[in-house]
């Protein structure tokens, strides 16, 4: 029987880290970084390199000693998303490695961007550095970059105390008791439901109540294919129902029949919830359901 191979973890790490001489160009960049400034160096051809290099990769010539401040904002030119950050990554949550061309620079810098989601970081996204509180002259003096603020959430909430009008209260009392209360305008003879105290046609006050039956005719309707918390299912039918004896339709659900079998002119009746479940609310009528009578000519 072969035995398991011998295995062991090993860390190859010079204690304390290597020291590195920066040279004048990289040293200037890091010194400026420690002061919170982002600097680029000009090449003989006039390009601005960020991060700076000592020798222009295009020509092999030394860069000039002309320095220009760039950024701090920049534009993402490309990015790679890190779904699972490793121990020595700059962020402990998913982030992007991105190429960032700082404003005023001709080359891009690699750094981490805290963007929340890869979708939030298309090429062209504007980002800004997030600096560490204590800087020491290292590229990690910039903790990471973050997208510019382009939108905010603005909560709006107003609390009301609503009091139902006397006429609506009267109507809902009727609905609680299983009765639909309307009214007749003494001037223009029109019968309105729900019960109201003035006539919208002639403006006159309305005095008397009229009790209407819970049967009526569907005048027209929509088949709604978008869900709604007040409707039991999708599709649902919201219909204009002209109660018998009324001159204005109510809008209500039609149920107990497949949506595509509802017709204009169909006779319907209110389906009430059991008396003990009723409240001062139109939800006492579950919906209107076909009576089976012949359709009415509209």
């Amino acid at each position: 029987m072969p035995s398991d191979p011998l295995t062991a973890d090993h860390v190859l790490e010079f204690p304390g880290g290597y020291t590195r001489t920066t040279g004048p160009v990289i040293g200037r960049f890091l010194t400026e970084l420690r002061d919170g400034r982002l600097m680029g160096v000009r090449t003989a051809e006039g390009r601005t390199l960020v991060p700076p290099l000592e020798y222009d990769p295009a020509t092999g010539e030394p860069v000039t000693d002309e320095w220009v401040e760039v950024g701090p904002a920049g534009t993402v030119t490309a990015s790679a998303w890190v779904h699972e950050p490793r121990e020595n990554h700059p962020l402990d949550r998913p982030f992007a490695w991105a190429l960032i061309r700082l404003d005023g620079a001709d080359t891009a810098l690699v750094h981490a961007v805290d963007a929340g989601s890869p979708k939030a970081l298309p090429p062209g996204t504007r980002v800004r550095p997030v600096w560490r509180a204590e800087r020491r002259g290292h590229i990690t003096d910039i903790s990471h970059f973050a997208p510019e603020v382009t939108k905010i959430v603005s909560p709006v909430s107003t609390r009301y105390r609503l009091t139902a009008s006397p006429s609506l209260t009267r109507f809902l009392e009727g609905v609680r008791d299983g009765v639909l209360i309307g009214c007749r305008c003494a001037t223009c003879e029109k019968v309105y439901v729900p019960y109201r105290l003035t006539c919208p046609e002639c403006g006159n006050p309305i005095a008397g109540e009229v009790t209407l039956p819970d049967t009526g005719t569907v005048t027209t309707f929509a088949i709604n294919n978008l869900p709604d918390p007040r409707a039991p299912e999708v599709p649902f039918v919201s219909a204009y129902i002209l109660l018998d004896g009324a001159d204005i339709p109510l809008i209500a659900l039609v149920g107990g029949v497949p949506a595509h079998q509802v017709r204009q002119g169909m006779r319907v009746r209110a389906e009430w919830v059991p008396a003990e479940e009723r409240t001062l609310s139109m939800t006492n009528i579950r919906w209107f359901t076909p009576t089976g009578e012949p359709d009415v000519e509209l």
Partner: protein
Amino acid sequence: MGNRCAVIGVGQTHYTTKRMDVSIAGLVREAALRALEDAGLTFKDIDAVVIGKAPDLFEGVMMPESYLADALGAAGKPMMRVHTAGSVGGSTALVGASLIQAGVHERVLVVAFEKQSESNATWALSTHLPFNASLVVGAGGYFAPHIREYMRRTGAPDHIGTLVAVKDRQNALKNPYAHLRIPGISREMVESTPMLWEPIRYLETCPSSDGACAVVLSSEQAVTGRPAWVHGTAMRSEPIFRAGRDTVNPQGGKDCAADVYRQAGIADPRRDLDVAEIYVPFSWYEPMWLENLGFAAEGEGWKLTESGATALDGDIPWNASGGVLSSNPIGASGLIRFAEAALQVRGMAGEHQVDGARRALGHAYGGGAQFFAMWIVGTDKP
């Protein structure tokens, strides 16, 4: 009608789903600056600003006119806000025109907008108050039954709505500002989209757009550039719940049209007008408004649509710009109709210009088809 009034500048933003690059202030300013540029003017030349938008609850910015005064150069000037639901863009233009016609001001800047990407319109239109059991699900849910009733009354075949949906999107391809630009738009494409609020299909509805529109109005003596003259203005409204109200062919719309035609000397709108920009947010509202506005006899509107009369090459083009079906920044949609009518009679409508257009109708409606605003503009002085 008072003193003469002219449209001397029109400015629009490109209508789109999300304008993430600008605030509401930046959006309205963009349209305003374009209108001023068209008129060859600056904010200094403006006496008063009138702004319109749909309900505050849409974007949740209360009294937006206060916040937008700076963006519209209104500091130290009269500024007011107009609100008549979906017709507000039209009403805003008419309020601006009334300030010129009354001789109060020489030049008025009129601006309307909606930033639908920041707006919660369907939520704002369906807040479920206690004691109330409204079953209306957004605007489509409200209008679908009235469209169904129109189809029943007139016996119009099902494909009429499709024809309008295609025609207006074809026109939109000629309008660089239009939001929905669908190359190869066809009946098959429209008919393959699902019913949202039957009988309304997805592609028979308007989009949700970010956008603003502005016009500069001027008195006769202050005209710069190429004017469109206002020949008539009218507004009407009616209560949403009233016994005997005809929701398919509302009296308010008929009365408003009769008023504006009388002022402009229009006896037969189909014959006497050259082009019309009409508020058609759901395709079936074209045949419905053809009847309501007297372009066709009652029950005959759909035949006009079917004959191609309202197409860009028809005898009375409707919505050469692509209309509300192609761009819908709600508060601005009415003003866009009014502005497009002005562009047509100024000969400045570009690729969707109707050749030789000299008189045009701009129309807007709102609420439960209960608010109406219209104007007629012409190349010639009235």
